[in-house]
């Protein structure tokens, strides 16, 4: 396990308030890339354009619209929408108790346990630190005109309640804000 991950775990355990951003995270790089498997695993702080450059070498791309390629992939995931979630295969996270947890993986099909890897897309750094993400990538020739996905702002009270409870599941002490 990397030293930085252990540091992050310690920091979460000893803090009462953390605001996650990629500079603070300070954890970047491409972990694994199997082009013939259409899978790439990256550390969350990696700049999107760095990943794109790697994919480009194999005529592959992320099959979702990129708003800002200077952003880190973790940030895109955290503010992301369904189109990003469609390409997510797995995540490693540190929850609000400082536990390192693993959900999903590097395979295309996986229905063991709830789909936490896709559920945390859009979690805005409020539930856990996303440390590593695995994505499905595609040959460029199969992807045409990617568009940004449109989001509704309206939310029901019941939804707010459930999201509140889920926040407590991952971050019982309310460390992340």
């Amino acid at each position, binding site marked *: 396990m990397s030293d930085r991950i252990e540091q992050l775990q310690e920091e979460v355990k000893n803090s009462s308030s953390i605001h996650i951003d990629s500079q603070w995270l300070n954890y970047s790089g491409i972990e694994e890339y199997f082009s013939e*498997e259409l899978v790439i695993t990256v550390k969350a702080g990696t700049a999107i354009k760095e990943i794109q450059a790697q994919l480009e070498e194999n005529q592959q791309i992320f099959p979702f619209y990129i708003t800002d390629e200077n952003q880190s992939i973790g940030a895109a995931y955290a503010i992301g929408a369904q189109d990003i979630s469609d390409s997510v295969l797995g995540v490693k996270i540190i929850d609000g108790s400082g536990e390192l947890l693993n959900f999903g993986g590097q395979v*295309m099909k996986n229905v*063991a*346990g709830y789909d936490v890897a896709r559920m945390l897309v859009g979690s805005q750094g409020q539930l856990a630190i996303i440390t590593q993400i695995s994505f499905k990538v595609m040959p460029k020739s199969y992807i045409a005109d990617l568009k940004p996905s449109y989001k509704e702002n309206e939310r029901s009270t019941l*939804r707010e309640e459930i999201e509140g409870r*889920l926040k407590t*599941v991952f971050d019982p002490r309310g460390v992340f804000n």
Partner: protein
Amino acid sequence: MFIKFKEVIIITCMSVIKELSRVLPKGIVLTGEENTRPFECDGLSVYRQKPLAVVLPENIDQIKQVLKICKAHKTPVVTRGAGTGLAGGAMPLSESIVLGLSKLRQVKHIDVENQLAIVEPGVRNISISEAVASHGLYYAPDPSSQIACSIGGNVAENSGGVHCLKYGLTVHNVEAVKILTIDGEELILSRKDKGLGLLALMNGSEGLLGVIVEITVKLTKTPDLARVVMAGFDSVRHCADSVSDIIKAGIIPAGLEMMDSFAIEAAEGFAQVGYPLDAQALLLCELDGTEAEVQAELDIVLKVLSGASSIKVSNSEQERLDLWKGRKSAFPAVGRLSPDYYCMDGTIPRRHLADMLEKINELSQKYQLRVANVFHAGDGNLHPLILYDANIEGELEKTEEFGTEILKLSVDMGGTITGEHGVGIEKLDAMCHQFNSKELEIFHKIKAAFDPEALLNPGKAVPELHRCAELGAMHVHHGQLPHPELERF
């Protein structure tokens, strides 16, 4: 004490049935051995359980009433679609009712322009494609069980099918769902929602978080043309490696399926479609799109497959369907050769396919049980069918042990215990191998966030921590032993 406890249960059960029967129209609440027997199991028929009652509502309002009554009586609810699940997910519990949704089978709205359809949960998968075919559209995810299984069940399992390699799983083809919570409250989850990915969470939740009562599915344009390439190989390894080679060449086939020699023999004996009986392994590779696209892909694929021992390309729609017929009937075909068979569902990275098939072969010899392999090779999703005879004492247990070894191997190769069939009751032990106690705890808490009293399909999909501890599953995660906080038995 014990007798008294039992009496109390019987009294509450009686009153829950009484109240359901009082509130709902006649013919909706089924009780008595004869009426409820067809609901005692799902596709995993070795496990059976009688429920208290079976309730077959006709509309959403009635489902709300059922949930409210069950909640008030703390009676567990097992939601059921068509009961084709292969993991025991829809198997009743002794103190539960079964909430069967087979009467909600209307395609409510078709939006041709936006390529969407709004359907009730009991609609059969194939019926959606049939309903929209005249518009040149279809619903892409196609489980082999598509003539029977329900779309609600598909969402609850995040089902896959032959065409998911190119067109995605259920989760990729659902635009929105309406669910009812255990309190009978409506919640709409859509791809357009801001916030957590609750729609994705609902896919594959196996009836533990909510009852899916309406689904908006995405529709796909029917391709101009589809052709299938059938390639026979002298060795399993050569065939498995060709799967990776096709993807490496930049091709995403519409379907990429593999069968081993035993499966070829069984399927050919059943369907007589001209599969090469001398081949050790067979690949079926479907290409679709415009005529030009298909031709361009075909040229590349034929080059990649030039080392195959035999090649056949479909020249008409009838030939294409014939070539698929063997694959699609492979399960019943294998079923003819044995009193019982057990279907596994591990998924691994494609590059390990050949190694995995060799390991399964070794295990087959170790356990002295025959195995036929028919699977979604493009996704790395294996379906070893283990042949056994439930009437021979101990053979089911031996089969399950064999299956568990395959699932552990899948996890160890970087894959998962289930690609599309779900955990249900069948893979609870295997879950202990894939997840550590902290991760399992998170799963339990997610359920509690939706269903704090654990009334929706309790005990399924996620094992209790003590179960894993008793099993002593050696899940070495992050360099630690599993459940260090729990006592060893």
